[in-house]
């Protein structure tokens, strides 16, 4: 072939289409070009860190014509006349200009990094890496460095406030637990029996291996795995970047399970010709948060006796008898009751922990490798609890020839937690312990307060082993045609070994052994073709994906073994001992296939289309496969010719729009096909009959998430100021909701898939570099989102659905779902204040009766009682007066980050805010409830700072303080049945907004001159503080530490303040 025309890319060298293009390009180019003194120039474009730059334009400066684009190995080849001035441009880098001289046959170019931010990153969309400038979906990137300065047990915790729309609540601080993650608000309407919201975390993909965080929440662990969150097993030091894919255009190809968004975690890769060895380690000190102030010793006894003597509605004699009959109050000289024990001290303590990480990496383009060894030991603040992680991860890329590439990664992690006597998500028995009366003696083997020492004697070991492996092979068998296969397999196994010795359980031992196994196999094969024709870039490919997931858990409970040393095997009480497979057994399969087409005109107009078909083993047989299409487009305004005049101040500007659908299989196979159980014997043969609990639903479908989004990005003054705005309108359909069937039906319940949610989100991100003068660089970025979730549909045309069949700490506040409202509201009484006097209580004009609680119970309101709004005006407070109130999801949230570099010092400050959410302070309700029960040995917390009702004159209960905030806590006769301190009233629903100074880090790079003689290439010291400060009006301990339903359970694992010192050395 004669090379008369300019070859644009290497891909054009072959293929029929190439000839056509060649002719066109030849005609175009030959018009403007002289064919003399041409030189063929070829070379590689690399970035400052040695990375290959793909997609850089080589432009002829004279006429502004793009003459070549670098391929995915950074290579280009041009044929130009000598003396041509070429410019190599890429948004991520500073432009490079060169006049081609006669000796420039080989031109290797190192580009300098651009100072801009917005458009420079490389993002993943549709399984492919592409420049952010050409991306049509919406995603955000957080670099690994942002997650590495603060040692935490779960790196995701540190993403809080860094990505607009990503709501991270560190409400589970237990050992090995992970935060609650939702993208643009929760997408769930189902509540587990213990009052937790079903998690709707985005799908995590760690180096190509999908890890679904939404499974294994059963059995009170409240985090995936046997109490260990799978993400807690990923060492933060190994993370290169985290990318959050937000809209359907970005996630649609992930199809199944991507309905709540996708978070791609990429671990580090070797990039240096010289091997690099890097050590990083931290020592960190955790201190317990402010504990609740309690009343101790004699004060406590006096408070109890005062309540009985002064606030009893019965006669004085009755009150005295009450006290005398309760030895706990009257027998004050009995050493068993004459104490002042600080129970909270037996629960928490400050601790010192450490972690270490060694990383070795290096390699060239043809072969690179990385090995990471990690050890993390976190002694958390609750005694006898902690989390350890040992991990080894490796990856390697081999590229023997340019056409063939193979990448292997393996990531093995071993985690172990000690949870003492609790589960992990909550501190269970220990919370009960801190609720004990201070009058009781300190714990010992011979006192009743076994829970205190139980924590020390109970054996509770949880281990979790996780192995993620992936193999990525790609082969370009013809120019432009690439076939690739990504195989990912992960297996996780969790074990819980729990044993309570006999003396803690009234003479009978108790053992519980649990183990589970998860296997997840994912294989994706794709065949793609891409080509560049002048300004036109085409991309097309098809793929086929299979996914198989299985989980199985077994548990054995052994009671009354012969002694504390024999924990099982033989000699146990067979009646109380049981075991078997737990009913969260699952085996699910998904088969998906589809295609993607993309077109890009001169990086100005970009269109993408994708279509995916999924069949899941959870689809109802009547419904067939589910289709997930997506369409998206982008317009890069800044690449338009007419925008060049604004180049001085407007660096980048673009618009994006997308529409698409993704699905998430929910529910279980039993919802679709019903369940068969053992029946009675027939003719002495066993029978299997259908379980009449749930009727099979042949129309069962996975959840479908349809997102329409619009976004725009603007960069000003050479990207010193960047702004991005995204509007997303999301519908989530086919949400499961169990409805009761008419009792004329043989079955009792049907799991419907007819509920829908709508989410509207506005996401805003601003980044600015106000100072950028050599030695001082200051970058500030802020993001925020405005969120609204609306319940759009319920099954059977219902407008309201009340869920009360769950309990949270036995203080159930029913949840109501009402069309047009946020998906969860609390069904509660509206508290307007406290009756100061008896005469303030309204009277039914017809009957003359005072307003009462319940009908005919004689519970007439009086001074010191809460004023509950009588919605229906019948002077009776009952279930008719319950109203849906509150929204546990924040309306506005986001974060502000500041990064200040001054010489060798770097100061990072990260703040987060969550505004406009309602939290039910169950803990505070519980504090007051303790007062209404002066005879039971519960802790009495100090309530002096609360403005509660007091009588004006001692002994006259008909008149009291006006404008009190809380009802009379000493009304122990009536408060129980009246429920003055019930949690389902607005009195305890508080504004749970907060600002949080999440972390502050000071880094110091020791100048190279000082460390060079030790052979170090860099040495960095760091000081960091985490969980430093929470600014809130909330009266409880921590507004972050509440369940996803916005309930502040007092038995949560306390969030610790943490201070750490770290060293990072590189050789």
């Amino acid at each position: 072939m004669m090379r008369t025309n300019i070859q644009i890319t290497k891909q054009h060298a072959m293929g029929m289409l190439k000839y056509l293009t060649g002719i066109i390009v030849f005609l175009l180019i030959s018009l403007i070009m002289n064919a003399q003194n041409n030189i063929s120039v070829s070379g590689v474009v690399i970035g400052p860190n040695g990375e290959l730059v793909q997609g850089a334009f080589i432009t002829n400066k004279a006429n502004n014509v793009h003459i070549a684009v670098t391929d995915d190995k950074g290579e280009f080849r041009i044929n130009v006349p000598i003396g041509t001035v070429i410019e190599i441009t890429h948004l991520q880098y500073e432009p490079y200009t060169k006049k081609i001289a006669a000796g420039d046959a080989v031109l290797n170019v190192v580009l300098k990094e651009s100072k801009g931010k917005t458009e420079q990153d490389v993002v993943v969309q549709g399984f492919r890496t592409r420049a952010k400038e050409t991306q049509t979906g919406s995603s955000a990137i957080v670099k690994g460095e942002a997650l590495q300065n603060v040692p935490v047990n779960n790196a995701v915790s540190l993403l809080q406030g860094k990505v607009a729309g990503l709501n991270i609540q560190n409400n589970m601080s237990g050992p090995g637990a992970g935060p609650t993650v939702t993208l643009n608000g929760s997408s769930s309407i189902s509540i587990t029996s213990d009052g937790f919201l079903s998690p709707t975390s985005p799908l995590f993909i760690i180096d190509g291996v999908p890890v679904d965080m939404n499974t294994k929440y059963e059995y009170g662990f409240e985090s995936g795995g046997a109490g260990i969150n799978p993400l807690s097993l990923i060492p933060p030091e190994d993370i290169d970047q985290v990318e959050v894919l937000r809209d359907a255009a970005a996630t649609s190809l992930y199809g199944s399970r991507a309905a709540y968004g996708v978070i791609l975690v990429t671990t580090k890769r070797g990039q240096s010709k010289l091997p690099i060895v890097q050590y990083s380690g931290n020592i960190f000190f955790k201190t317990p948060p402010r504990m609740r102030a309690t009343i101790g010793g004699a004060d406590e006894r006096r408070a109890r006796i005062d309540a009985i003597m002064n606030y009893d509605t019965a006669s004085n004699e009755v009150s005295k008898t009450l006290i005398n009959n309760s030895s706990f109050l009257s027998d004050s000289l009995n050493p068993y009751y004459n104490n002042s024990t600080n129970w909270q001290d037996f629960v928490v303590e400050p601790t010192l922990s450490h972690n270490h990480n060694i990383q070795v990496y290096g390699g060239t383009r043809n072969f690179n490798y990385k090995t990471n060894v990690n050890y993390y030991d976190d002694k958390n603040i609750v005694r006898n609890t902690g989390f350890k992680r040992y991990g080894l991860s490796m990856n390697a890329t081999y590229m023997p020839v340019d056409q063939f590439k193979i990448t292997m990664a393996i990531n093995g992690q071993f985690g172990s937690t000690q949870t003492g006597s609790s589960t992990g998500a909550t501190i269970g028995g220990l919370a009960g312990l801190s609720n004990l009366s201070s009058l009781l003696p300190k714990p010992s083997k011979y006192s009743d307060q076994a829970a205190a020492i139980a924590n020390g004697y109970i054996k509770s070991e949880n281990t979790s082993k996780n192995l993620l492996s992936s193999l990525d092979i790609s082969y370009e068998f013809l120019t432009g045609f690439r076939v690739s296969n990504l195989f990912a397999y992960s297996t996780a196994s969790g074990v819980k070994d729990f044993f309570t010795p006999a003396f803690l359980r009234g003479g009978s031992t108790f053992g519980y052994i649990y183990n589970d196994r998860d296997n997840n196999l994912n294989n994706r094969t794709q065949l793609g073709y891409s080509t560049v024709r002048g300004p036109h870039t085409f991309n097309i490919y098809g793929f086929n994906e299979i996914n198989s997931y299985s989980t199985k858990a077994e548990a054995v409970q052994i009671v009354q073994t012969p002694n504390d040393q024999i924990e099982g095997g033989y000699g146990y009480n067979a009646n109380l001992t049981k075991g078997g497979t737990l009913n969260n057994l699952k085996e699910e399969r998904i088969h998906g296939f589809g295609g993607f087409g993309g077109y890009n005109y001169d990086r100005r107009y970009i269109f993408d289309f994708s279509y995916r078909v999924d069949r899941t083993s959870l689809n109802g047989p009547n419904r067939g496969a589910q289709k997930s299409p997506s369409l998206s487009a982008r317009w890069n305004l800044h690449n338009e010719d007419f925008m060049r005049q604004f180049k001085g101040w407007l660096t980048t500007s673009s618009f994006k729009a997308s529409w698409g659908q993704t699905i998430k299989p929910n529910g279980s196979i039993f919802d679709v096909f019903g369940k068969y159980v053992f029946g009675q014997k027939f003719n002495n043969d066993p029978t299997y009959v259908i379980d009449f609990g749930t009727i099979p639903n042949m129309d069962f479908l996975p959840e479908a998430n349809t997102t329409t989004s619009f976004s725009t990005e603007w960069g000003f003054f050479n990207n010193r100021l960047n702004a991005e705005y995204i509007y997303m309108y999301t519908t989530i359909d086919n949400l499961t909701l169990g409805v009761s069937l008419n009792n004329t039906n043989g079955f009792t319940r049907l799991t419907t898939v007819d509920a829908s949610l709508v989410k509207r989100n506005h996401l805003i991100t601003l980044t600015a570099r106000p100072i950028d003068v050599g030695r001082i660089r200051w970058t500030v970025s802020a993001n925020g989102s405005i969120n609204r979730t609306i319940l759009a549909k319920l099954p059977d045309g219902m407008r309201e659905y009340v869920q009360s069949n769950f309990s949270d700490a036995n203080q159930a506040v029913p949840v109501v779902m009402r069309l047009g409202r946020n998906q969860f509201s609390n069904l509660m009484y509206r508290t307007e204040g406290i009756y100061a006097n008896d005469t303030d209580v309204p009277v039914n004009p017809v009957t003359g009766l005072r307003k009462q609680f319940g009908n005919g119970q004689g519970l007439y309101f009086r001074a010191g009682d809460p004023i509950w709004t009588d919605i229906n005006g019948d002077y009776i407070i009952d279930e008719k007066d319950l109203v849906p109130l509150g929204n546990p999801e924040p309306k506005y949230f986001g974060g502000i980050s500041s990064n200040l570099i001054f010489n060798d010092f770097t100061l990072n400050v990260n703040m987060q805010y969550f505004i406009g959410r309602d939290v039910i302070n169950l803990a505070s309700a519980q504090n007051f409830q303790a007062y209404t029960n002066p005879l039971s040995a519960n802790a009495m917390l100090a309530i002096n700072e609360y403005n509660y009702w007091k009588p004006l004159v001692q002994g006259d209960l008909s008149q009291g303080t006006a404008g009190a905030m809380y009802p009379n806590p000493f009304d122990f006769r009536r408060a129980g049945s009246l429920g003055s301190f019930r949690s389902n009233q607005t009195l305890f629903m508080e504004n749970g907004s907060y600002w949080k100074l999440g972390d502050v880090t000071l880094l110091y790079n020791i100048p190279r001159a000082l460390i060079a003689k030790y052979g170090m290439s860099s040495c960095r010291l760091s000081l960091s503080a985490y969980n430093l400060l929470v600014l809130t009006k909330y009266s409880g301990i921590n507004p972050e530490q509440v369940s996803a339903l916005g309930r502040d359970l007092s038995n949560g694992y306390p969030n610790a303040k943490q201070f750490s010192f770290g060293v990072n050395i590189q050789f």
Partner: protein
Amino acid sequence: MNNKNILYILGFSLIISVGCGKYYPDERENIGGDSQFSQLVYEPILGRNNYYSTFFKGTTTYPTEFFIRNVKRRNGEPAPEFESILPVTVWKQAYTGEETSIAEIQAKQEVQNRPILDIGKYSGDIIVWNTARSSFIRAIPDSGYLFDVEISNTGGRRFFRNMKLMPYRERPTEPSNRDAISGQELNPGVFTAMLNNVKGDSTNRYLSGGDLRISMKKVEGPSGKITFRFLDKNGKIMNPNLFSKTDWNGLIHGFNSSITNTGVTYDVLYPIPLVKIKTKYTTQDGNLARVVFRYDRVGFAGAIESASIEFPFAIYESGNWEILFQFVTDNPKFTND
């Protein structure tokens, strides 16, 4: 800008306008299909305040407004008598039973004008006021009236049709000696007092309820008074002071008591009891007032016998009422053995 750009801008604005649209329902209240009045036939007794809390909420949500519509006679004729709005006495503050004067009680009441068949605007409680009288309302045995209840809120409106109102004639006292349907007196009195340790003077047996006839009569005179009189078996007036241990001030929630040889009179407010709550003047449930007359005598072998006559009752009409206790078989024995 070329045409293509304009096309793109149009395309984007289309997507924006579609995306910014609102495709979800507004929040509104609900009128439940399963909501119901649990009572469809109302049989109030005229002359009293009758109060019915019969609306079963179901899935209806509040606030919801209730209206009575279309009251008509059973044969479909209009019923203009229900258009009358009459003054009724209502409570504005809670009655406690501890008020020390009529004025203090009256200060807690006020007069309002209400339709005789009323409904709680937000509660759906049906009220037939004591201003409804058989003089203009058709009482049983007439087949009565039909009425509809309209409930409405932001979620819509629903009618509960043809609820029946079949009032009984006035029975101004309880216990009553009148026939429920005709309103005529069947007996001269009732025998519902509880006698405890009351020994017959001549028979020397313990007397029981059947030995004491009580008749409650409205007599001439100024309204707002109640008098208790005792008659012996011969119809002779007994001196109330014979019941010497009686707590005359705590007998009934009345004031300005005057004990004469013929009876004891109080200034009171009607109805008695004023409110259905338990006070020291009422029965346990507060439904009826309770008067107790007591005396002691030395019985056989020198034991003191504390005798009491207890009578629970209610009076719904104001007037000058006289309650006559007549021993019909034997007189009580006041002398010591």
